[in-house]
């Protein structure tokens, strides 16, 4: 087959889906500040690429796209492993998973950009199901003090 052949509708739709995933991942990586969410977005973009590759593979009837996606999976795994280590290192230095915590590349006479005061979270406190009390109330568990109020 030659490149001048028209694409099948399935391939076209696959390409559109891949483009949407890629674009959404791009928005996420640009906008979100949580380092882990940023990595999730990078993976999203990789997923978009994978879908595109498989679509083209379908179009051409060639295994290359599939092989490439397998390689992308491998590289993504490697990237995730190394990058998560970096994220952990960064977190251990700043105590934050904030991409904006690293600003030392800025011009020396510019002030550090800081977030404005945020309004209080108006989420309703989580209400966990409670059982009718029976027996003696157990002593306060040390670990419960570390329990997160909100996930």
């Amino acid at each position, binding site marked *: *087959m*030659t490149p*001048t052949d*028209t694409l*099948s*509708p*399935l*391939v*076209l*739709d696959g*390409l*559109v*889906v891949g483009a*949407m995933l890629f*674009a959404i*991942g791009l*928005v996420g990586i*640009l906008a*979100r*500040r*949580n380092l*882990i*969410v940023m*990595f*999730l977005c990078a993976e*999203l973009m990789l*997923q978009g690429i*994978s879908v595109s590759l498989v*679509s083209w593979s*379908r179009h*051409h*009837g*060639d*295994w290359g796209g*599939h092989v490439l*996606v*397998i390689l992308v*999976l491998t*590289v993504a*795994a*490697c990237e*995730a*492993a*190394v990058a998560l*280590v*970096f994220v*952990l*290192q960064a*977190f*251990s230095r700043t105590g*934050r*998973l904030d991409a*904006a*915590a690293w600003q030392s590349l800025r011009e020396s006479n510019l002030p550090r950009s800081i*977030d*404005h005061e*945020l*309004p209080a*979270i108006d989420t309703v406190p989580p209400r966990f199901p409670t059982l009718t009390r029976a027996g003696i109330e157990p002593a306060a568990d040390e670990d419960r003090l570390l329990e*997160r109020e909100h996930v």
Partner: protein
Amino acid sequence: MIAELFQSISPGTLLATAVTTSAAGLWLLLPRGLGGGAERAARSLGGVLSLVALGCFIATGHRLGSVGEEAVFLIVSLLAVVSAAATIVARSPVYAAIWFAMTLAGVAGVLLVLGGQFLGVATIVVYAGAILVMFLFVLMLAQPAGLAPYDRVSNEPLLSAVAGAVLLGVLSLSIGRLSAPPAACCAMPASKAALLADAPSTDAAEPGVDLLADNHVARLGGELFGRHLLAVEVAGVLLLVALIGSIAIVSRGATADIEPAAARRAVP
């Protein structure tokens, strides 16, 4: 009826509407630290706009051969795209990770429809089973209690959303033009076409049929370990290097960093 309504609109208008609404919708949906009713209202509006954008994209989509295939593709692709959008707008990184798992499920479905049987399964297994779990572990290790301030605000949400939407529009436009027969000016010069025609054909079989054969996985494996063996070896080495590298970085960081505890307390 809605489909007819959509089809009565020209593709250009549809695309412009899709770009505009997706940009506005993503901007409204992205966390901007509003809080309270304003935030709820913004997210609702953003959701509606995003749905409009999705509708536009569905309307510009193509009719597949069979209704069943079309329904399946629609469901899995919607799952993937909506979950992806939810991934990037979720305040809590844990929710984002879970939404990402949903995306993976959708992507796996899309891959299956596109004929990538092995890849669909592998995506679920490798991503959802391994990589995502790793993400969650890191989140548990690192994420402090409560909703961090940096999860409640975004970096330049409007510009980012516009950039993403414009990119999507450009890509859609390009893909849409691929479906049309090539213009005369874009036709390949005769000499080049002849050159390509003379070249030995790499795939004599009917397109798609080859990929969708019964022994799909076996043939993929044969391809992988035959023609692309070197790439597999390189990937293996890469994995090994990444493994060693991660361990090296972690162990060195553990001895080098003395102040993290203090820093953690200082910056909540």
